[in-house]
C-alpha cells in the first residue's frame, strides 16, 4: 500500500482549536527524558500538537548559560529545578485552552531525578508511557534509557543537537535498530604516560588537571586516580588545615616535587626539553599581591600571565576547600556538593578555574604553548556542545512528528505493521548534502533492522512476576522454577547469572556474577573456590541477595551438547506486584509468571566477544572528560559536515554502511509501496 502520506491532518482543518484531535493523541502518555534545550522544545511542541499527558524527568537545575535556548526559563528561575519550572510554564500555557476538553484533562508532571536511578525509574515506570523521547546530553544516560525502553517494550525517539547539526532516531524495540546497535565512536583517549609524564599539547595538561580536580575535591569513594595519572600526589586537604597553608603545600607537591621527580628520569627527556619546576619562592609573594586583583571568572578569553594563574589557583582552592568542609554534613543539590566531595561541573566557576589554573601552571613547567585560556579550558574539560535554540527547535519538531506518526498509526487497526516503514531517522545538516540534483538540509533515512549481535537488543528481555515472597525463595529455587521451568532454559546447560544494577555503569554482563553452573566440572583450586561461592549463593534467598522488585538479572545459557553449540542471552526483570496474592502452599509451577517481554532466541555460540565489548575500562573512566562533541549527537553525524568541508559534505548519507551484514541476513524493514 502506498505510504507516502500518513494521515496526520486534523479532521476539520478550518478551525484548528476545535478540530477533532485524534483520540489516540489525546490519550497517549509521553515521557520526555531531559528538560534542557531539546527537552523543553519537545514538551512544548507535543502540547502544541494536541498531546495532553506528559511527564518530564530531569536532574538539573537552571543555569544562566541555559537561557540562550531553553525558552521556558527566565532569569529569575536560575537555580530552580528544570523539570518543575518547565512543567509549571507548560501548564500555565495550555491549561486554560484545554479546560474545555474535560474528558482528557491536561496532565503535565515534572519529576526531579536521575534516570540512572533504575530503582526509581524501573521497567514499570517506563511501562506507563506509550512513547519515550530522549533529550539527553550524554551517552551513559542514553544507553540507560535505551535499555529500559527495550526491557519495557516501549518505543523511543532519540535526539541529539550540536551547533547547526542534529539528529532524530526512532527505535521500535526489537523491530528496528536501537541506540546501541551502532558502536559509538570511542571517546578520544590519550596514553597514560603522556598525561602522566610527557605532556606536549595543552589538552594533555587539561586532562591531567581534570583528574587532579577529581582526586583533590571529588567524591572520596571515587577511584579517581586508578590509572596512576597523578603518581603519588596525595593532597586532599586535611581537617583543620588552613586553606592558605594547603595551597602552598599543594603547589609545592604538584609543581616542584613532582616535576623534579619527572625531570630526574633522564630517559624521558632524551631529544626533548626536560620540564622545569616553578620557582615558587620567587613567585608566591607576587601571586599573593595579585590575589585581590585577578579577574576571578571563567569567560575571559585572553591568556593570563603566570603569576595571575598562580593567584587564580590560590583563590579557587580557598573556595573549594571551604565548600568541601561543608559537604560532609550537608548535601547541596544545586552545586553537586555532597558525599564528601564536589562534582566537577563546567559551569561551576571554582571548579573550572582550578582546572584551568592547574593546567596552565603545568603547561608552563613542560614548556607547552600556547597556554589555554579559561574559555578554552572550559571547552575541553567541560565537553561543551555548541547549542543554538533554532537547531533544538528543528530537532524537537522532527522528534514530535515521529511521535505523532507512531501514535496515530499504532491506533489504526491493521496499520501497526506499517509503523516501521513510516517512521524515519532524520539528520539535520548545516550545509545541504546529497547529489547535485537533490540537495537536502533534512535527510531522512528508513529505519534499519536491529544488529543481530547488538549487546542491548539482540538478547531476550522478559519481566517475570513473582507470586511468592522474596525471602521465601532461594536463588536455586528461582533457577529451577523460573529460569528452567518457566523460561525454558535447559537444566544441563552452562549458566551464568549476573546482576544489572544502577551502580553498574557498563550495563554489561559479568560485573557482579551471582551464580554459575558448569556442564563440565573443571578441577583446580580457584574453580573450586568459585563453585563453593555459587553453591552458597544458590542456597540464599533472593531477599538475602538483595534482589527485589525491579532487579534485573542478565542470564547467559550455553548448550554445548547441541550441534552446533548454541547460546541464549536474556535480561530478566523481577517484579513483585503490589496486590500480589502470595500463595499459601503454591505449586512450584505457579510461583512465577511472565508479565511481558520474550525470552530471546538461541543462536550459534559466538567464539569471540560480542560487538558490545568495546570501550574498555580506561575509556569508560575518561568519558565526559575527553570524548568528542560528536559523542553527544546520538549516532554518527555526518563527520564531513562537521569539518565544514563544503565539498565532501555532498557525499551521500552514511546509509547502511554501518551494519550491512545485518541487512543481508535479516532484510531491511521495508514494505513496498
Amino acid at each position, binding site marked *: 500500500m502506498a505510504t507516502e502520506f500518513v494521515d496526520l491532518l486534523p479532521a476539520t482543518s478550518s478551525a484548528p482549536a476545535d478540530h477533532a484531535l485524534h483520540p489516540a493523541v489525546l490519550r497517549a502518555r509521553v515521557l520526555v527524558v531531559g528538560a534542557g534545550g531539546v527537552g523543553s522544545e519537545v514538551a512544548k511542541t507535543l502540547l502544541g500538537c494536541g498531546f495532553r499527558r506528559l511527564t518530564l524527568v530531569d536532574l538539573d537545575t537552571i543555569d544562566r548559560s541555559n537561557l540562550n*535556548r531553553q525558552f521556558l526559563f527566565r532569569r529569575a528561575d536560575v537555580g530552580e529545578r528544570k523539570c518543575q519550572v518547565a512543567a509549571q510554564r507548560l501548564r500555565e500555557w495550555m491549561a486554560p485552552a484545554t479546560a474545555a476538553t474535560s474528558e482528557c484533562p491536561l496532565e503535565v508532571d515534572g519529576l526531579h531525578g536521575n534516570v540512572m536511578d533504575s530503582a526509581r525509574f524501573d521497567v514499570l515506570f517506563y511501562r506507563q508511557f506509550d512513547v519515550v523521547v530522549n533529550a539527553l546530553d550524554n551517552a551513559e544516560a542514553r544507553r540507560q534509557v535505551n535499555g529500559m525502553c527495550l526491557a519495557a517494550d516501549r518505543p523511543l525517539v532519540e535526539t541529539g543537537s550540536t551547533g547547526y547539526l542534529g539528529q532524530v532516531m526512532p527505535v521500535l524495540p526489537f523491530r528496528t535498530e536501537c541506540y546501541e546497535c551502532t558502536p559509538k565512536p570511542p571517546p578520544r583517549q590519550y596514553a597514560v604516560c603522556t598525561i602522566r609524564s610527557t605532556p606536549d599539547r595543552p589538552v594533555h595538561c587539561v586532562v591531567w588537571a581534570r583528574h587532579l580536580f577529581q582526586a583533590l575535591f571529588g567524591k572520596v569513594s571515587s577511584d579517581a586516580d586508578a590509572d596512576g595519572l597523578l603518581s603519588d600526589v596525595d593532597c586532599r586537604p586535611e581537617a583543620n588545615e588552613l586553606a592558605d597553608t594547603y595551597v602552598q603545600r599543594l603547589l609545592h607537591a604538584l609543581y616542584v616535587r613532582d616535576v623534579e621527580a619527572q625531570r630526574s628520569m633522564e630517559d624521558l627527556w632524551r631529544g626533548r626539553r626536560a620540564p622545569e619546576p616553578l620557582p615558587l619562592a620567587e613567585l608566591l609573594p607576587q601571586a599573593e599581591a595579585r590575589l585581590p586583583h585577578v579577574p576571578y571568572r571563567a569567560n575571559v578569553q585572553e591568556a593570563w600571565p603566570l603569576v595571575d594563574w598562580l593567584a587564580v589557583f590560590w583563590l579557587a582552592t580557598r573556595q573549594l576547600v571551604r565548600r568541601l568542609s561543608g559537604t560532609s554534613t550537608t548535601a547541596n543539590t544545586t552545586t553537586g556538593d555532597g558525599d564528601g566531595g564536589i562534582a566537577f561541573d563546567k559551569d561551576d566557576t571554582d571548579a573550572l578555574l582550578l582546572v584551568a589554573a592547574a593546567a596552565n601552571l603545568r*603547561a608552563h613547567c613542560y614548556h607547552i604553548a600556547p597556554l589555554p585560556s579559561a574559555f578554552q579550558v572550559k571547552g575541553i574539560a567541560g565537553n561543551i556542545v555548541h547549542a543554538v535554540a533554532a537547531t533544538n527547535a528543528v530537532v524537537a519538531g522532527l522528534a514530535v512528528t515521529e511521535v505523532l506518526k507512531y501514535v496515530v498509526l499504532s491506533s489504526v487497526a491493521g496499520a501497526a505493521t506499517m509503523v516501521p516503514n513510516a517512521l524515519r531517522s532524520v539528520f539535520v545538516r548545516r550545509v545541504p548534502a546529497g547529489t547535485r540534483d537533490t*540537495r537536502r538540509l533534512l535527510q*531522512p533515512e528508513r529505519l534499519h533492522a536491529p544488529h543481530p549481535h547488538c549487546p542491548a537488543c539482540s538478547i531476550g528481555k522478559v519481566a517475570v512476576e513473582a507470586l511468592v515472597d522474596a525471602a521465601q525463595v532461594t536463588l536455586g529455587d528461582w533457577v529451577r522454577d523460573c529460569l528452567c521451568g518457566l523460561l525454558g532454559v535447559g537444566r544441563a546447560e552452562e549458566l551464568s547469572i549476573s546482576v544489572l544494577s544502577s551502580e553498574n555503569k557498563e550495563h554489561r554482563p559479568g560485573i557482579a556474577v551471582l551464580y554459575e553452573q558448569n556442564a563440565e566440572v573443571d578441577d583446580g583450586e580457584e574453580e573450586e573456590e568459585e563453585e563453593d561461592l555459587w553453591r552458597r549463593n544458590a542456597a540464599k534467598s533472593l531477599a538475602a541477595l538483595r534482589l527485589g522488585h525491579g532487579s534485573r538479572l542478565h542470564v547467559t545459557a550455553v548448550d554445548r551438547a547441541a550441534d552446533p553449540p548454541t547460546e541464549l542471552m536474556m535480561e530478566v526483570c523481577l517484579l513483585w506486584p503490589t496486590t500480589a496474592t502470595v500463595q499459601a502452599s503454591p505449586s512450584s509451577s505457579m510461583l512465577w509468571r511472565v508479565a511481558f517481554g520474550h525470552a530471546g532466541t538461541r543462536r550459534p555460540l559466538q567464539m569471540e566477544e560480542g560487538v558490545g565489548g568495546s570501550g574498555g575500562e580506561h575509556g569508560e573512566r575518561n568519558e565526559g572528560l575527553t570524548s568528542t562533541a560528536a559523542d553527544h549527537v546520538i549516532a554518527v553525524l555526518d563527520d564531513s559536515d562537521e569539518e565544514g568541508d563544503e565539498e565532501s559534505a555532498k557525499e551521500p548519507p552514511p546509509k547502511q554502511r554501518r551494519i550491512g551484514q545485518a541487512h543481508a541476513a535479516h532484510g531491511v524493514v521495508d514494505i513496498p509501496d
Partner: protein
Amino acid sequence: MPAHCKATRDGALRMRLSVDEAAQRALQERYDRQLRLWGERGQCQLQRARMLVVGASAIGAELLKSVVLSGIGHCTVADAARVRPEDVGSNFLVSEADVGLWRAEVVCEALREMNAAVSVEAVVGEPAQLLERVGAASIATYSLVAVARQPRSLVQQVADVCWEHDVPLVVLQSHGLVGYVTLVVREHIVMDVAGSGSAVPLASLQLARPFTEVVQFCRDHYWPLEQLDDDAHAHVPWLALLVLAVEDEPQPSVETVLRRLERWRRHNSEPNFTEALLMAKRVLRGASDPPMLLTLERCRSRPVEAVARALRTLQAKRGLPVSRAIPEMHCDTASFVGLQEVYRQRAAEDVAALREVLAADAETATGGACVDDPLLQAICDNLYNMACMRTGPYRPESGCGAGKRRADDFEGEDGAASWLVLMHAYDAIREKHRAPLEDATVLEAALQRVLQQFDLAKVHIRPARIQETLRAAAVELHPVAAVVGAIGAQEALKVLTQCFVPIDGTVVYDGYACRATVLSNPPE
C-alpha cells in the same frame, strides 16, 4: 539594549556593552554555548542586528523565539490580526487571556519576558495598512526582514523593497504538513565560512613569500641550525623551519624545500621536522591568492569593493595581510610567544598600511564608501574564510526559479518543486475565492496555468499531492510551524552572524517524509 562593537588595542573585536561589567559577564554566560559556534564577532553582529518580522502566527512566533533567545539586537513584529481562540495552544507566545488583543503586541510582551536584553516593538493595523504602518522606507534600516504566512501581494511588495535596498529577506509558509523557507539576498558577504574555532588557514601565514620580520626573527633565533644543540634543534617550530627553507628562493618549489628539510633533519624522531615536511606540501602547493579576492572586487557593497581594490594595491606593495594568530605547533613557549608576537605586529602594520591605501584612494573618497575599522579588521582576519553569495529576486509563481527547473525537481523522489508550485497555486486561488477550496479541478486548472506560464506544461504533478494540498487547506500545524520557523531562524542567524553559508534559494520541508530539499535560485 543593543551592544556596540569597538576594536581594542590588539584589534580583537570585543563586545563593549553600555552596561556595567557584571551585566556583560552575565551576557557572556548566557551566550556561552553559541559564542563557541559563531564567535564573538558573530555575536556582536547579531546584537547589532535589527530584524523586521511580518506575521505573528505560530510560524512567525517560532522564528522570533529562536532569534530573540540567541540575542538579536532588535525585533519589530508587524501583524494584522487579533488573537483568535485557535492561536491558543498553537502559538506558544499567546495564551487564553490574550484572545481579542492585537497578536503582535501580545507576542512582543512574551518576547520581552524571554530575553530582556532584546528590544522589541509591535506594529499593528488592518492588513491593507500594515506595510504603510511599518513604513516602506524604513525597511531599508533593517538587517533582515522575515515574512511569515502573509498574503502574496504583501510578500511581493516587501520583497521588492528589500531587493531595492539590499536587505536580506526570508519568506516562510506552511500548508498542512509541508512548508518552505525562501532566502533572498541580492548580495551577502559571509565572513567566516568555517565557523569560530576552526583552524588558522595556512595560506594566511604567507609562507610562500615570508615577510621581512619573520625571516629576521627566524635568522636571529634559529640560524644556523647546525649550531643548535640536539634539544633546541628538535624544538625549532615548523613554521620557522619553512621560513628558513624558502626565504632565499624567489619561486620556492615544494621539492627544493622538502630536500632542504630532509638535509637539515638530524634523525627521524624530530617531531618538528615531521610537522614541517607535512606542512610544506600543504602550504606551498596551494595558490597564494585568497580565492575570494576576485569575487570581492566585483562586490556591490561599496566598502567591501573598496577594500578589495586596496588589497590588490597592498599585495603589490608589501604582500597580503598576514594572520594575527598562528596555529598550535610543537615548540617551546618562548618560540611560540615570540612568533605569535611577530605575526601580531605584522598583522597590525598590515591593517594600518591597508587603511593608508584606502585613504589615498581618491575614488573611494569620492565614492562615499565608508570603511570602518571593525570591518577592515574583520576582512583582514577572514581573508581566507570569506565568501560572497547571491540569489535571484523573489518571484512566487516561478517558485523562486521554478521556471528554470528541470522536470526532475517536480517528478523525482523529492519532487520539492511540485510542493512549492502547489502551495503557490493554492494561495493564488484562495486570494481570489476566499472560501476553502474543495474542488481538485479548480486547483488543477490553476496549477496548469502556472506551469504553462513557465513552459512546464508537460510536467506531471502527482495527483495524491494535489489531493493532499486540498485536504490540508493551508492549515498551520504546530509541529510544522516549529520545524519551518526554526529552519527560518537558522538561516536568518547564518545571515546575521555572517558565519557559515546560508541556503541559496528555497528549502521545501516535506513533513510526510521528514525531508527538506533545497532548490537553488541562482542570480540572473
